[in-house]
């Protein structure tokens, strides 16, 4: 039953038997970016009802997800989150200078 060709092969296996946390965290992760079939959603929901650790995993994964989206948004708006150190900048300027033909004027 581990056919990789069927899109939801492994998922339907998760619905049939008792879902474990490895499967649940997989589905929680997948659910952030993809639609789960209703039966799978329902099975995940009942696992979450019984498993506070996976509930925490879900909450925390969403927090990380939103932080990374913010990172991208701020970057797009030109708001620096990570910055080059003065050393890194010096290194870059030096490298640029080394590659410029000293004979040219500009």
């Amino acid at each position: 039953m581990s056919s990789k060709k069927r899109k939801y092969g492994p998922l339907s296996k998760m619905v049939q038997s008792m879902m474990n946390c490895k499967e649940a965290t997989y589905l929680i992760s997948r659910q952030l970016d993809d639609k789960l079939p209703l039966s799978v959603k329902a099975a995940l929901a009942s696992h979450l009802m019984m498993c506070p650790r996976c509930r925490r995993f879900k909450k925390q994964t969403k927090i990380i997800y939103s932080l990374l989206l913010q990172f991208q948004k701020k970057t797009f708006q030109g708001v620096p989150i990570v910055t080059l150190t003065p050393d890194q900048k010096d290194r870059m300027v030096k490298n640029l200078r080394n590659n410029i033909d000293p004979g040219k004027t500009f």
Partner: protein
Amino acid sequence: MVTNKFSLNPENWVQDQGDYLYNFAYSRVLSATLAEDLVQETFLAAYTARENFKGNSSERTWLTAILKNKIIDHFRKADTRKQKYSLDADLPFKRDGIMKDHWEKDRAPQTWIIDETVSLDNPEFVTVLQRCLSNLPEKWAIVFSQKVVEDRKTDDICKDLNISASNLWVILHRCRLKLRECLEIKWFKNE
């Protein structure tokens, strides 16, 4: 003597555009050293192609376009298929017994205290987040960044990186497990 209509002083590029390009690169490759290399290469390539530069207002756009191509080239060189999935031993789940594949007690999610220190405006937090992102295997980081940071369509990523959708989901799962655990150990446990 040829006069250009804009200043092409390399010092200005690094000072004016360095942080922006570095952020751009970093958000896509999730590695500080790799991001620095890509920005460096961008400046060098831009200098070589400076005759093509048309005007000041598009300098950032122009440099970013060069950087985007460098990033794409880098992605193409990395073969994501070769990255082995972490052995199950790396996963925080029990390997055997009646509770197989349930959380290992010591590695199960603890309660996190989310306060104002958990923010991208907090340099200390950003440093920890960066460190945890850099722990992701390089080839996985590419997949992770394209999906989670850039929010690209699954089909597009799979086509570009030559992986199946199910590979992608497994990679994201592994990345999220690793990232969560790293943040908990390095930030939230030290409260």
